[in-house]
């Protein structure tokens, strides 16, 4: 088995979305060296991230939904950025507009915002440069 070097995280309280994402991401990500992790609970995602990084794995990006119970996507991203300011964060959300998302964008904490429903191509277009940058 190849040596694991990278990781990608997806967080959405809707598991169907995660399934779709996993199917799509496997098309462009080399799973031999990249770990794809999925969380429906943002708090667990935060713990999982710490765990992956401590392995250590290079987390390429994290895809986050906005509307989630207990902690919304914006709060999650802020929490992540506080610890890992260089981590690429992508928001995938059905929310039309939210002040918190706006604030995130203004604070340059979002690499991309992709609205649901999304085109696979749009997602890939956003992710590809990030992945290629890691050259895996």
């Amino acid at each position: 088995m190849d040596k694991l070097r990278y990781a990608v995280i997806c967080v959405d309280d809707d598991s169907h979305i995660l399934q779709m994402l996993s199917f799509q991401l496997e098309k462009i990500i080399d799973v031999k060296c990249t770990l794809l992790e999925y969380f429906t609970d943002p708090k667990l995602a935060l713990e999982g991230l710490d765990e992956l990084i401590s392995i250590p794995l290079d987390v390429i990006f994290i895809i986050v939904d906005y509307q989630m119970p207990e902690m919304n996507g914006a709060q999650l991203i802020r929490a992540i950025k506080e610890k890992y300011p260089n981590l690429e964060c992508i928001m995938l959300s059905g929310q039309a507009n939210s002040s918190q998302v706006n604030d995130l964008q203004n604070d340059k904490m979002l690499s991309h915002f992709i609205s649901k429903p999304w085109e696979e191509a749009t997602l890939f277009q956003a992710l590809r440069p990030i992945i290629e940058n890691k050259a895996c």
Partner: protein
Amino acid sequence: MIPPEIPFNEIERIAALKSYHLLDTLSEEEFDELTELAAQICGTPIAAITLIDEHRQWFKSRHGFTVNETPRDLSFCAHAINSPSETMIVPNARDDERFTDNPFVTGEANFVFYAGVPLVDADEFALGTLCVIDNTPRELSEAQLKSLKIVAKNVVKLIELRRSNRDLDERYDLMLESLELNNPFYLVLNDAGFIDYFGRSFKKSVPSIEQGMAFDSFFFFERNIPLSDFKNVKSGKKRMVFFNTLDGNQRYKCSISEIGNRLVISAMPLLNVKFPLDNYHLTINDFTQHDYIAEFLFLQNTSERSLKESRELMDRMVTKNKKLEAARKDIDILSRFPMENPHPVLRLTTDGDILFNNESAKKHFLNDFSIEENRIHDEELNGLIRLLIEKKDKSRLKMFHRNNRHYSITLRYVEEYRYVNLYANEITSFIEMVQSTEKELIGLTKKLEEQKNFYEHVLNNIPSDIAVFDINHKYLFINPQGIKNPEIRAYMIGKDDFDYCKLKGIPNDIAIQRRDLYNKIIEGGEFVVWEDDFKLPDGSRNIVRRKMGPVYDEKGEIRFLIGYGVDVTDKVLAEERYRSLFENNMAGVFRTGMNGVIHDINPAYAKIHGFDSVDELKNVRSTAFFKSEKTRNEFVALLKKEGSLRNHVLLNVDRYGKDLWLLINISYRIAPTGEEFLEGTLIDITEQKQAEISLQHEMEEKLNAEKALNAKSLFQNLLMEISSKYINLPVNQIQFAINESLKQIGQYVKVDRVYIFNYDFASQTSSNTYEWCNDGIEPQLKLLQNIPFSDMPIWIKTHSEGKPIIVPNVKELPEGKFRELIEVQDILSLLTLPLMDGDQCLGFVGFDSVRTIRRFTEDEQLLLQLYSQMLVNVKSRTEYIQQIETGKKQIEIINSELETRVVEETKKNLELAKSITDQEKLVTLGEIASGIAHDLNTPLGAIKSGAESILYTFERLFNDTIEFCSDEQIHFAWSRAANKQVELFIGGMQQRREATSTLKFLSEMYPSLSNEKQHEMAEGFVKARISVEETELIDQIIESKNSTHFINLIYHTSMIRNFINAISISNERATKVIQGLRTFIKDHQHGTKGPINLYKNISTVLSVFDYEIRRNTELQFEVDHNLTVHAHDIKLFQLWSNIIKNGLESMEDREDRGLLHIYSSTTSKTISIHLENNGPMISKEVQAKIFDKFYTTKSAKNGTGLGLNIVKNILDEHDASIALDSNELLTTFTISFKK
């Protein structure tokens, strides 16, 4: 005739009369009004206010005659004043022995009746009378007498008031004068720089100075400061500058302050030796800064000391020189070479013969001392020599001044040889030097003396006492004003007040008193002021205001004390006089601030306003006495406009709120200190006013009584009766009523027939419409119908012109058609009156006398005319009523139309209401749209991606996999996917772990498989979610030739299955959202209520507004999680949305963060939700309308005006209530549900 007696207090009475300054003044409206009132009250042609002067009576006001004055002897009033408390009434002067032969009684004036009320002032002097006079004998009623007395009382008040006002003016002048007293060098400039007032003393130094001239015509400020520079210098913050007269001769130090619009310059001339002291009226104020006194005392010390010092200096120099000389002489004597001595040397015998003299002696000495033939002829020198020999002194030295030369001469007696040696030394240059020094010193001293004398002169010329004390309270200086006798004055220097008392032989009370003051000053270190009030031997008073205090030296220690006094007798006496006038005046005198604060009032003022003493008004403002704020404002505005009001009548109230009529004189004034105030006098004229009013009532009553009398005339009564009948009658009975009235009138005026004719101008005919006939008289009505106008031209013409036709006797008429027509009817006399409606003649009413000749008096004609006019009125009334009836019908029609319209309107309204409901929905829809977006977008995302993924997977399945698999395998894969619920996805870590364990399992179970194959299989199993426990399947896969494809088949098939599941579930979710929306939009009226958790319900709303709330608002959400109400959830949703949205919008304009605080509270009966925001206060007007439909405070673009109306409707539906509380800080909507 008996001349009037002279009152016992005549001298004082005349003095009092003069003090009012009333005699020979112009007539004044206020007095004339009272005179007229008196005449009116008593119903006399003549009334007057008389003042009894020494030899005449003078009329201050007169009504009904024109004479100004009459001799006192002939005066009625001069009698009247002898009984000041009584009204003198002369019912018939012709029968009164005092007046029978009085020319005013016997002559043209024809005075018969007289009544006079003495005018008695506060000091009980009868100044004159208010009198009424008639030309016939008569009497006055009780009421008239009483009223007359009241008017007289008011005359006195008015007189007193006049005097009070004069006093006030005097007082104001006094105030200006006191300004002068304090500083005669003051200037008051108006804002244009012109002189408003100037101190007297300027007149002496600048004689051309006049009021109204420009300041810069006389003076200029140093450093050319313009006058405008002194504006805005607040009083109290004075500015100190210098100015000069234009010729530069006099310099002034001054302080300037702005008071009101004026500049007040308080100047002080700078004194110098050339200062022409006599030209100035110096006051104590010039010395308050003690400059002059200090200067004087300093100079006094200096000049004496310098003189002494210069003398001492001289002496010292001389002595020093003497010693020097002596030493030199000794050397000379010792020298054996007198011939070579440069100074004169002589040797004399004891007899005075010159034995020897050297060259130098020959030069001047022999000449200067008259030495001839070997002998000295200078007596003084000889005397000195003799003295030397007699006393056998060894040597002697003396100065000699001869021929402008100074010699210092030393004599030595040499006893053994019995001769005298004389050594002289010319010291002229030295002496001259010393002398010039001395001269200089003396000159300086003289100058100092001069200065000292000047200051002494100044001090001596001050019209106030000045004394300077040393720190032991001994006199250092006293000016002549202080002690006039120069010897005593000189004696007192170095002494104290006790010495003075001893000297004068008076008790030392005053000395003790002064010593106390002195101790007080020493202790306190400050000036003390007191007043001495002496009674002079002639009985007059002398009041001196004194001030004493310390003067400090530069070390801050008391150097000496200075005391001075100024004679304020005149001022104090004037003030006291004023005070007494003020206190004892009948008129109220007052001084108040602009805000009504009472500064000063007299007892009369207090009494007039219903107070017992002045003290009771301490905390009262004069504003309290105005009827209303409005009347005060009007009064003050008028006063400010006019500056002062004279004899202004004002209706105020007293302390009990009772009407108080005042006659006021008031002025707006500015004190020299800049303070604005109101000053004036007032008298209570309430009685007079009430008398006037009651008089007016009386007159009205009289008039009414007369009217009633007239009305009593039967005929008028009749008319009134008839007319009143008409007024109350229904229209259909009018005809009967007119007939009835014709009867009554006919019977009353005793005629045989009364009738009414109608003129119909359209058909040019006339008809008899009503008729009454006396018994036995043939009715004519039926015969007299539709008579053509052509048959009665005179009638038509006369009546049309509004004129009556009167025929007293038909037999007297000329023959003709006119007479015929009447005669036919057997008429003897006739009166017809036109019925005129404005210009139009409607017909006529006629009165016939058939049996007798009847002449109608003018009065009767007039009354009948009245009757005819009444008939016209009735006619027009009838028409009017008919019109009303028609109008009513029209209104009925309109009403019925209106009903139809109302129905239509209602329909429209209903439509409108519907559209409003639609709008309501839209409003809410918009608000929730963003919330819905998320709920809808998420499942849509899943559906979309799911569909794409299925497509992708199918492609993979059909392109790479399915052709390598058997039908059995395909069938197996599908049924497995359909039946086995596999996990949708697994995380990478878990995948790895599973792969590892699967690999381990494979390597154990299938060791024959290649390593590579094991890896591939393990990964495939994990991916396709084939568990190691499915051993049968694993066997099957491993044993099959196409194992890789088979795994892929299983994997893809279950993926497709999963995707379809996901799509299906997502679709269900989306449908639910849409359904909810549909329920809300379409059927929300029919929705059923259920238990709603308020916390959750409101949370949903808050999430909708999340963006807006976070943007600029701090949210505090403190609603109990367990509150449940029975409600439509969507409606509640709407409810919160509206209130929160409004709140957020109201806070939009805030610069800081807004606050939205939502919390709950419960009572036993209610559950309340409070929505609080700190937006702007909602005004009371808005609060009243805020729940109205379409009412919005937002611009048309932002607001539908529906929001809070929706709220109201929802609340009604839920039997809930809303309360609004709004203040500057918070606006709270409270929604209360019943439990």
